[in-house]
């Protein structure tokens, strides 16, 4: 193998598994260390810079960081990265003083943002401080998009959302609420220097089966129903409720039903339980609220008696796997009838752009999706950019934020007349953490604690109040213990070949057998002859140049605990522990 190029900013970035997995590349270990130091405001601001909605995301994020967390590879559970973010948000002081100021003189450019969700708000957050005049349009009365209309209050209280949306709107954003934009051409005619489309994926799919028409108003499309609950148009539901679908929307529908009078609420899914799309924690919370989940049930018909919906029939199936493909085949068991007063359909969500004229210069593909550049987010109309769920289909809040940052860079480059493909490099910094022979300016003592559980409100109280937040958040003592589970993966093991005397001390001390000195070879073959086989191909091998004994140092990054023992044991400081700070560049 070639010696590893640690100058490539992505090499050490990739070692910070959580940060690398985060679409917005939040410097996770850095904020977790700040939390253990009681510096909640600083921890909040690190988050805010990257992900804009720490309070919201600390409660609702899809947390792609957690499955990536190295801790999950050395013991059962990853660090509770998401819920620690909430600790920073809940315990911070007033942060307004740290927010970027708005220049007294604007730069003369006007930008329209269509849709008031997290994607648009992020674009606003990045561009307003640069002097852009921002006009934000949304059909609803307040900003937040689906964070407001879809995510139920028992998961995300209004005041948390309002606070974080407010930080942005207070940057002198011109809001046009209660304004549905019905024509792209009209917007383009208004002479904005750039237009951003952050309108989400607003259409929920209905499920048309025999009886659908007669069932009428007792069958609801999940996301429409959730929005009407959020905006207080809907206050109750029948005692018996069927929720169709196995994703997170279904979980929010069933739990909301339990709070609006649903006593026997059942989630019914076509696939096996193990293949449900919903996050495991969402499923767990639903089941905790006495909601059974019935797997392998394919809906057949709405059953109507005396002109009224009384339930649904289902065919039972089993999953058959052939060549990695799954098919559902009838199990031969008798049809199942389940009683219901109401049915909530949560079987998918789609984009829809009825308001964008096909002659607006924005081209669409055969599935009705806009043609958008994956890097620059520019559409075929150079002045129009897409982000969030509107760009590539429904994802989540953190992805919308990540898009927002990239769009802001593109719009800024576009307005300056610069090439959009020349993206500014990330900010990186690598500093030694050495304080003394066995002293580091980070806590390198790896604790054995298992993941701590976030306490929840009492079930009865939670079910009787739609707005009562279920999760209570970590108390500070527990938060600090949980924070200590972080392995500080941003504190890198940095090897300086010329200092090494090949004494093997690092090899012998490393608790997780990461380091091997051996003759070089091709990667696939080298992976098999390390001290412990390097089976996780997603994790890099860190390889040095050839040493005097004609061997190379090979470190498998996979399960390194970042404990610093290699560096402590190295007589020549050929190893050093150095903190790597990586920040995605913002516009400007």
């Amino acid at each position, binding site marked *: 193998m070639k010696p590893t190029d640690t100058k490539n900013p992505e090499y050490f970035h990739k070692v910070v598994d959580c940060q690398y997995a985060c679409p917005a590349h939040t410097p996770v270990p850095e904020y977790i260390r700040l939390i253990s130091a009681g510096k909640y405001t600083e921890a909040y601001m690190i988050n805010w810079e990257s992900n804009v909605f720490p309070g919201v995301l600390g409660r609702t994020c899809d947390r792609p960081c957690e499955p990536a967390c190295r801790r999950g590879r050395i013991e059962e559970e990853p660090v509770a990265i998401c819920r620690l973010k909430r600790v920073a948000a809940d315990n911070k002081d007033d942060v307004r003083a740290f927010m970027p100021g708005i220049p007294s003189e604007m730069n003369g450019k006007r930008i329209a943002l269509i849709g008031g969700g997290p994607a648009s708000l992020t674009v606003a957050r990045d561009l307003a401080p640069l002097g852009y005049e921002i006009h934000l349009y949304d059909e609803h009365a307040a900003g937040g998009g689906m964070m407001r209309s879809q995510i139920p209050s028992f998961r995300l209280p209004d005041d948390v959302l309002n606070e974080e949306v407010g930080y942005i709107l207070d940057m002198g954003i011109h809001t046009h609420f209660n304004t549905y934009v019905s024509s792209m051409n009209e917007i383009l005619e208004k002479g904005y220097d750039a237009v951003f489309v952050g309108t989400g994926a607003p259409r929920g799919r209905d499920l048309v089966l025999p009886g659908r028409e007669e069932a009428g108003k007792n069958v609801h499309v999940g996301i429409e129903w959730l929005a009407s609950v959020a905006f207080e148009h809907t206050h109750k539901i029948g005692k018996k409720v069927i929720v169709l679908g196995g994703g997170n929307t279904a979980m929010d529908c069933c739990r909301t039903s339990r709070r609006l009078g649903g006593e026997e609420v059942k989630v019914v899914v076509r696939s096996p339980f193990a293949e449900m799309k919903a996050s495991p924690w969402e499923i767990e919370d639903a089941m905790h609220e006495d909601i059974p989940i019935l797997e392998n049930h394919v809906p057949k018909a709405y059953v109507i008696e005396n002109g009224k919906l009384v339930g649904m029939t289902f065919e039972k199936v089993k999953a058959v796997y052939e060549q990695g493909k799954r098919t559902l085949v009838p199990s031969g068991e008798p049809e199942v009838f389940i009683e219901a007063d109401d049915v909530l359909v949560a079987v998918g969500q789609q984009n829809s752009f009825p308001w964008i004229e096909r002659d607006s210069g924005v081209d669409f593909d055969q599935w009705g999706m806009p043609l958008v550049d994956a890097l620059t987010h520019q559409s075929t109309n150079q002045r129009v950019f897409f982000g969030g769920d509107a760009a590539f289909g429904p994802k989540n809040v953190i992805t919308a934020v990540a898009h927002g940052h990239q769009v802001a860079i593109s719009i800024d480059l576009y307005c300056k007349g610069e090439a959009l493909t020349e993206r500014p490099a990330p900010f990186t910094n690598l500093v030694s953490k050495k304080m003394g022979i066995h002293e580091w300016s980070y806590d390198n003592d790896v604790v054995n604690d298992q993941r701590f559980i976030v306490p929840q409100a009492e079930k009865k109280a939670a079910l009787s109040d739609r707005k009562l937040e279920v999760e209570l958040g970590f108390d500070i003592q527990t938060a600090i213990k949980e924070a200590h589970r972080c392995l500080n993966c941003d504190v890198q093991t940095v090897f300086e070949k010329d200092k090494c*005397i*090949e004494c093997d*001390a690092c090899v012998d001390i490393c608790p997780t*057998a990461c380091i091997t000195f051996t003759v070089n070879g091709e990667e696939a073959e080298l992976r098999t002859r390390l001290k412990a086989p390097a089976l996780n191909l997603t994790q890099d091998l860190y390889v040095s140049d050839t040493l005097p004994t004609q061997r190379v140092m090979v470190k498998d990054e996979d399960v390194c*605990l970042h404990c610093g*023992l290699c560096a*402590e044991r*190295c007589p020549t400081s050929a190893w050093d522990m150095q903190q790597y700070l990586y920040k995605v560049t913002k516009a400007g």
Partner: protein
Amino acid sequence: MTYIRPKFRHPDLPKNDLGYTTREYEGSLSTLCAGCGHDSISGSILQACFELSIPPHRIAKLSGIGCSSKTPNYFLGNSHGFNSVHGRMPSVATGANMANRDLIYMGVSGDGDTASIGMGQFVHVIRRNLNMVYIVMNNGCYGLTKGQDSATADAGSKSKAGSVNPFQPIDLAGLALELGASFVAQSFSGDKEQLIPLIKAAISHPGFAFINVISPCVTFNNNPGSTKSYDYVREHIEETGKTDLVPEKSEILASYESGTGTEVMLHDGTFIKLEKLAANRDPFNRMEAMNALRNARNRNEILTGLLYIETETEDLHHTINSTDRPLNTLEEEDLCPGSAVLAEINEDLR
């Protein structure tokens, strides 16, 4: 010195025949200086015992005094151990071996512990061919007492403070050969690939097995001008050949390249495989081994690898015809067979 070591280990560590990983062979955290050669030797002993799938409770570690003699604390934490008095490890090992011949005796000593204060004990344990492994972690100085020249320091070797050693060194491997040791090897702490198989062979050898391991003292004897520094040793090492220990059950002939080496069967059916032997080297000829060692010294080279082995060897228990059962398992009736037996013996003496 490092104070804490995380409890987590690599989830895919290889397992040996007992189902153990190297974790079961670890000891407590070393307190030696970072980079000390002794720690690598500890690592090699640990690895050798793991690879041989020896149940840790079947091993007794014995040592004297010195940094080297402290190391048994840092490997095989689940084995028996006795950290004895300076230079007296051989006596304790002899006593222990006499009382329980069923254990594997792993003696660890230093060049000070062996070649100075313990010299008298060392020569006698060789003479007696006690069934044990005797490893000297040889750094040419008294590390524990801050680096004074030891009796194995080469004449002309410079200390960290700049003084030059005027005395001739004692060549421990040469001495062991001279005194009739049945297994003599030499190695370097920084060459685990060579050292681990040598330790495995030494453990399998049914008599006294001596390994002199050059082991740089990073703190007091790793300076330019020292002949026991990492750099000097690496530049002056000469290998006699490659050694490997092949367990009885594996198909040795298949993997064996004819014409490149020799294989030696040990009493327990395992084989020692010697590969790529240097020209004119014959590990079964004591005289030849002594000459090779001497010639290498004259060239300022350090000859490493298996120098000599006597496969048909009889250890002390055979020589003194002691009982096959370990003494510590003998009951009162075995030891005091009663007046009838006494009368019989007396009758014999009439």
